[in-house]
């Protein structure tokens, strides 16, 4: 008897499972905009981006959302709007607008909240993004991964994770992944502490090198691949950090000394740039033609010669301001010209870091904050851009937020930027993308889409150094781990 009852219920269950939400016929118009997370209202997206899934935070007895573009529309029930890759491709097949309508049923009937649009740009985005996932820690670290994400769907894979070569006795920090011209076959990243060294992949050749020399401050730190030649410019840094007792920014990272070096992969040698002990140089970046090296530089003269430099700096850390500087570079002789200031941030009482040039060489994107070098911990840090043809710079108010905006990079076609922002919660960094118009105007940025719309609210790690790449890194983490375990080749300093 029981079995029979169950069999009778089965079709009902199947029907319930197959129930598809439908848009209500009768509804009233509401002027209220739907509250959605991530905020994808009125953003501009590339046609090849993964579906923008979002969560509706408005409460009601029932929720129905319709996404429609020219000739196609899809309806979703519930508070999570999760279009499939296939349906999203149809929605984004042509440049134009996707209209999102949210219908909300409350006790007094259905309401249609104010529709919003998602603009589909004609320009596609470089398909892969590499980043490091790291908990926003201060001193401790445990599980760090350099990952790659296919931006056209949700596939995320580990390029290298530190735990594969770490145990309780031998901890390992990994950082500063960088690629030559979006090429996943030409990559470098650093390993610190256990099995320390720099891993360089160059067209299938994997090697571990040790760039530390007695006369250098440190091994290479922040890297910049030359766009064409097998060269990597690095800063060398002596870094310290202290904690704010009250300020919400919590931590201040300072370079007590920093210089620049050049690693010549082919010649297997390190070239030190001429240095000035009162100048702090950091965050190198090449012009697209490889003839100019941009970086940020600050002058620091100790105020109290009796105090150790670090303590003296701590007293005056808010006065430490970096300008953007450039030096010409001769590839043949591997020599640099004298420095010239490109953007005098200090004159404005500001500090500029992370210069990044657009692929066409016209736009110089950088981060500007009130002081210091490590803007990821500075809430006032914003993105700025300089038009190098007119040498005028402006704050990118269309993409900035009251929270931190920091690390950024350009897509291969120069039509998109990705940048780090802590606008979600002030503490955890997430990648955001914005479209760049020909006139340098940007559109409202959108957060990296995730399979689960609430994923970034649950993720207890930050995205660090988002860098576009043309395709996936194919070397397996296990292979990289083997190289990391191997002995590092010491790279001598050029005479």
């Amino acid at each position: 008897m029981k079995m029979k009852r169950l069999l009778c219920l089965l079709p009902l269950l199947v029907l319930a499972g197959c129930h598809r939400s439908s848009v209500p016929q009768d509804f009233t118009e509401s002027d209220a905009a739907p509250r959605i997370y991530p905020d994808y209202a009125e953003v501009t997206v590339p046609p090849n981006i993964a579906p923008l899934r979002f969560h509706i935070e408005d409460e009601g007895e029932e929720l129905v959302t319709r996404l429609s573009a020219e000739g196609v529309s899809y309806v979703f029930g519930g508070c999570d709007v999760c279009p499939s890759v296939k349906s999203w491709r149809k929605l984004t097949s042509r440049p134009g607008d996707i209209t999102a309508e949210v219908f909300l049923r409350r006790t007094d009937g259905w309401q249609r909240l104010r529709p919003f649009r998602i603009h589909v740009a004609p320009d596609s985005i470089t398909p892969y993004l590499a980043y490091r996932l790291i908990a926003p820690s201060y001193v401790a670290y445990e599980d760090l991964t350099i990952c790659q994400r296919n931006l056209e769907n949700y596939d995320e894979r580990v390029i290298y994770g530190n735990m594969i070569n770490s145990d309780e006795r031998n901890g390992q920090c990994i950082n500063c992944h960088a690629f030559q011209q979006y090429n996943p076959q030409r990559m470098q990243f650093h390993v610190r502490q256990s099995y320390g060294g720099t891993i360089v992949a160059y067209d299938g050749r994997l090697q571990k090198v040790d760039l530390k020399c007695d006369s250098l401050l440190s091994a290479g730190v922040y890297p910049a691949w030359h766009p064409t030649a097998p060269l990597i410019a690095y800063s060398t840094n002596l870094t310290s950090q202290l904690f704010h007792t009250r300020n919400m920014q919590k931590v201040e990272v300072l370079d007590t000394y920093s210089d620049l070096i050049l690693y010549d992969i082919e010649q297997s040698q390190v070239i030190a740039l001429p240095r000035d002990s009162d100048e702090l140089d950091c965050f190198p970046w090449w012009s697209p033609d490889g003839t100019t090296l941009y970086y940020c530089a600050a002058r620091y003269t100790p105020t109290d010669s009796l105090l150790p430099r670090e303590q003296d700096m701590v007293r005056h850390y808010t006065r430490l301001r970096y300008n953007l500087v450039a030096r010409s570079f001769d590839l043949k002789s591997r020599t640099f010209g004298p420095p010239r200031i490109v953007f005098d941030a200090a004159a404005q009482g500001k500090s500029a870091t992370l210069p990044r040039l657009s692929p066409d060489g016209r736009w110089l994107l950088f981060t500007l904050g009130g002081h210091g070098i490590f803007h990821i911990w500075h809430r006032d840090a914003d993105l700025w851009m300089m038009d190098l043809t007119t040498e005028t710079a402006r704050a990118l108010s269309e993409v900035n937020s009251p929270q931190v905006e920091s690390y950024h990079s350009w897509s291969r076609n120069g039509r998109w930027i990705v940048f780090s922002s802590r606008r979600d919660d002030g503490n955890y960094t997430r990648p955001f993308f914005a479209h760049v118009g020909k006139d340098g105007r940007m559109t409202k940025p959108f957060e990296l889409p995730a399979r689960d719309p609430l994923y970034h609210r649950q993720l207890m790690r930050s995205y660090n150094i988002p860098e576009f790449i043309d395709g996936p890194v194919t070397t397996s983490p296990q292979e990289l781990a083997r190289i990391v375990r191997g002995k590092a080749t010491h790279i001598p300093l050029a005479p």
Partner: protein
Amino acid sequence: MLQNMQKLGKRAAKACLLPLAVALMCTVLVSREGDVLFRAQELSLFLFSRHFLETLAIYPGGTLSWLACLATTCFHSASETFLLLFLLWWASAAMVIRLGRLEGWWRLMALLVPLALLACMAETGYWLYYQKLPGHMMVPTLGVTLALTCASVGLCLRKQSVLLAQVWMLVCASVGYLLLGAWSFAATALMMSPFWRDGCETKRQSLLAIVLGTAAILIVPQIAYQHVFTQVERSQLYVAAMPTFGINADDFPQYRLPYYALALSLLLVALLRLKPAKWLTREWQQAAVALACVAVALWGVKRVWYTDENFHREIRQSRAIEEGDWEQVLRIAREPATEGPTRIMVMNRNLALFRLGRAGDEVFHYREGDTPPQAPWLVHISQVNGKSLYYHYGLENFCYRWCIEQGIEVGWNVEGLRLMVKSSLLNGDYEVARKYLDLLGQTRHHRGWARRYREFLHQPERIAEDAEMGLIRRLMDRRDRLDTDRMQVEVYLLDYFAQSPHSDDPLRQELNLLCAMLTRDIPSFWPRFFDYVETHAQSGIPRHYQEAAFLYGQLERTVDTSHMPFDPEVRQTYEEFMRFNDQCGAMTLEQKKAAFRPRFGHTFYYYYFLVRGLKTA
């Protein structure tokens, strides 16, 4: 009829013996370690989300850890803990009996497995704060129960088809490794055991099972390393999902003893499947061996059971602090003890006295001490309750920092998330507080707490009205400076407040004065004493502050104390102290301490002259 009844009674007694023994073990554990289990639950995290499972599943045995985290949530209630452990341990023992075909006195041997599991839990101690394996307290119990379940299914299948059993064994070795980590080896080893051939298999089939099982145990982790897991160190492959007992460069193998005992007890079970040897055919012989094994196991459990009284007191104090029951913190501090308090207990007690407004009168009425925590490594206050102390003293950035550092090192946990919510609310960092509240909203027992605190997001002005946070807000500095505590929480807190500039808030004035007094820093003391006197003169100056002022007035003539209206007892006690000191002139410091304590142990004079060289970490 009577005979039947007697037989029935005997059978019932036999059937009840095992569950009764297991119930007794659970009762002992829950009654003795209930506070530790509750704390383990606070220091663990289980979220009802797919993301949480995915986070753990990147390691072999991640699913087992996930289950263990879920099971750890049961430690919130003693009855749930009892029920869960009883069911799992009883099931393990019952499966051991079935697998080993234990009869008569041999059935007692089934208790060895739950006893070893009990030992794994009872030895925890300060590993509570250092163990990195998520759900570590429940992993052994669940690992063994699931391994025994796999083996039981395997043996049942063998009766149907040997081939099917061998396929099942390979499934357990491969899929099992992904889900259970190294615990799947136990299942595979039990299934390939040559001792259980008992007619189902031919010799050849048995040999094949051994070869296949051994090969699977050796090869599966290597394949998984190459193709599945990208975050596992090669040397950890064969101990995946097992607790690690190392801290930085130090390894503490003694904590692995219960795990070796567990392996040994499973091996014994496998051996007992053999027909008893000729010399053990008599019932008394079997009884003697079985009872001896159980007795050794009981002795072993007793040996490894972590019994540091101070550890338990610290844990109970932490819970009382979390509940805002400051009197309970002091009651625990007053409990008679064979050893002096740890610095953690002293700091908890001082916090409670300060919160009750009695520090100035009572801070020296409690026993001082720096008994080190009973652990073979240096236990840092920052890693135990430093976060909570920073929170309660209004150093919210430092509280947040240590929550993050510890969350990264030993895993996110309920206590850390709650403190991050509270410190973020106090800092005005509401969006990140919302993030942590969202996470706590996905927990089993703390969603109500999250709901309550979410209200502060909607009405931040209510933070000032909250009994706990309102008071802490008054302690928070408006000024900012760059600083570091170098992991020395006690020294940092004392110096921070002792060196703090003038404050208008009477509460903060008292804290500054208390810390200046405890650091014995005379130049810091005077300005804070005068600040305090200015606002508290009407309500009377507490005894210890008077003692300090009187003593400093006598020691250094920088401040004229002759016109200060000290209580007569303050002057009188000082004079008695000095007279007694003259009488004890030839004594060593330790002798003086013992001689002075009964009469002067509760005075600042005793603290100033005789409490020296306390070690804090």
